[in-house]
């Protein structure tokens, strides 16, 4: 393996890792943007998505559906995981966050932490404590570009996550609801004054953010081949760092942050002793926040209130 293939390979590794972090980070940033709450349960929603995908996939495999209808299988697995977790997201918002919207920030954060523990334990009890194998859909086949290898599974996942990000961007920028979401995020009182139904906008945010997390969960399960009830934790840390890095509340920021965290992680392992890889993520985070406290694409948070 020569240097150029090495670099291309590491670039692919980083892109892959970065897209997954980005998808998860989007959920944090959207929810934070709209209600200024760190949804600590997001990591568990991501894991729940992985499990729903597993359940659907296992069921389809049992009846030999996967071989005959491959594309439809993918559609069903992702669709059902995203739909289920979207509904779960709304339910969580309704039960755990909505009643606390006018309470102190701390109360909402505690509620979010509680939700996270609740979901994690629920999944532990229902799905078991150990790794669950994910049926291999793509196998190990792939293509070679300039000496670097990328499997079809990776190609599919990278393309799908980019598509989801583009779709989200179109939705947020070009549709009425998307604009309502941005308006609500920027100034809730004014948004309401212009006729925007804030509750509904928040609900939609709690569908989209968790659904994207669920898609990432299915991708992780599919590619890495196993899921476990507590796998959301490490992704939560990284994606949360990505959201902060990019500027929490900013959608392009979350994507950029995810790619940077993925890139830094891979670069460190690739060129430096791999022992302190996890520390680097946070060194980068601290450095960026030192020079730009609101994150790379974040805005100053000094909105005036009524």
């Amino acid at each position: 393996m020569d240097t150029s293939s090495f670099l291309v390979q590491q670039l692919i590794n980083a892109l892959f890792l970065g897209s997954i972090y980005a998808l998860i980070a989007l959920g944090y940033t959207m929810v934070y943007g709209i209600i200024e709450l760190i949804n600590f349960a997001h990591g568990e929603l991501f894991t729940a998505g992985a499990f729903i995908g597993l359940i659907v996939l296992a069921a389809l495999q049992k009846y030999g559906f996967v071989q005959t209808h491959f594309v439809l299988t993918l559609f069903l697995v992702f669709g059902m995981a995203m739909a289920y977790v979207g509904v779960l997201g709304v339910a969580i918002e309704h039960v755990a966050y909505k009643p606390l919207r006018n309470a102190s920030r701390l109360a909402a954060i505690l509620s979010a932490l509680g939700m996270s523990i609740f979901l994690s334990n629920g999944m532990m009890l229902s799905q078991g404590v150990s790794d669950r194998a994910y049926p291999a859909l793509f196998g190990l086949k792939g293509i070679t570009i300039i000496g670097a290898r990328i499997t079809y599974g990776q190609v599919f996942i990278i393309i799908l996550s980019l598509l989801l990000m583009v779709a989200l961007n179109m939705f947020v920028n070009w549709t009425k609801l998307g604009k309502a979401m941005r308006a609500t995020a920027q100034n809730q009182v004014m948004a309401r004054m212009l006729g925007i139904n804030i509750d509904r906008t928040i609900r939609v945010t709690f569908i989209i953010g968790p659904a994207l997390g669920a898609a990432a969960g299915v991708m992780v399960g599919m590619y890495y081949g196993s899921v476990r009830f507590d796998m959301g934790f490490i992704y939560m840390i990284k994606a949360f760092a990505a959201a902060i890095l990019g500027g929490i509340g900013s959608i392009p920021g979350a994507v950029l942050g995810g790619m940077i965290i993925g890139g830094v992680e891979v670069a460190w392992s690739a060129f430096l002793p791999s022992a302190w890889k996890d520390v680097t993520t946070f060194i980068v985070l601290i450095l960026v926040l030192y020079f730009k406290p609101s994150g790379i694409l974040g805005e100053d948070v000094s909105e005036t209130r009524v």
Partner: protein
Amino acid sequence: MIDLALKNVSKRFGGLLAVDKLDVEVPKGKILSLIGPNGAGKTTVFNMITGVYPPSEGTISYQGKKLNNLRSNRIIRHGIARTFQNIRLFKSMTVLENVQVGMHCRTKSGAFRALLNTPFAIREEKEIIEKSMETLEFLGLADHHNEYASNLAYGDQRRLEIARAVATRPEMLLLDEPAAGMNPSETAELMDLILKLRDTGLTIFLVEHDMRLVMGISEMVVVLDHGHKIAQGEPKEIQQNEKVIEAYLGTKVKAKA
């Protein structure tokens, strides 16, 4: 004909009586100004009308319908739009987008239709863009439509606030100190603009400290002090009212009248 009627309206913040048994009637198609020293309760009146918070007592009705316990997003559908004293633009949106958001409460496609049927929503959005551009044209902001709201000159930001409120197709417009921070030529333009809006049939309810503006365009003035209505009448009567002069301690009225 009376558009908006406040009857016996009070607002209490803990121990503070910010508005005390206020009666105001805003006639349709006219410009009515609410004036008073700082902290008199003017913004509080606007907040109650637009559903930011409910009145502690009394009733607010608009064209015969009671507004008391409606939330802001319902009130806008009755045709009441407002601007804020401090600028509340969506800063990281473009000028055009700010106006589009204002227009959305008048469009048909619902939330889930927009979510599931994006092509349809995008088509509808195209029509909205055309109408928004017309509104910007009317307010003289068309040239800036692609700029971020935060990059506009101060006077233009104030006008964009009005444009966004107008985009909701209201019948009544509440303006909270629209001239605050404007230079005299910007204020003069604003005066023309308000008259132009009134001439399209809009009812204007204005809160303003700039007395030249207030006295220049109002058909009726209500004066508030410490939450009480201390005077009401045509600009000329108000300028000569002893109580009003006293309330202002001879500062603004004398200086500007």
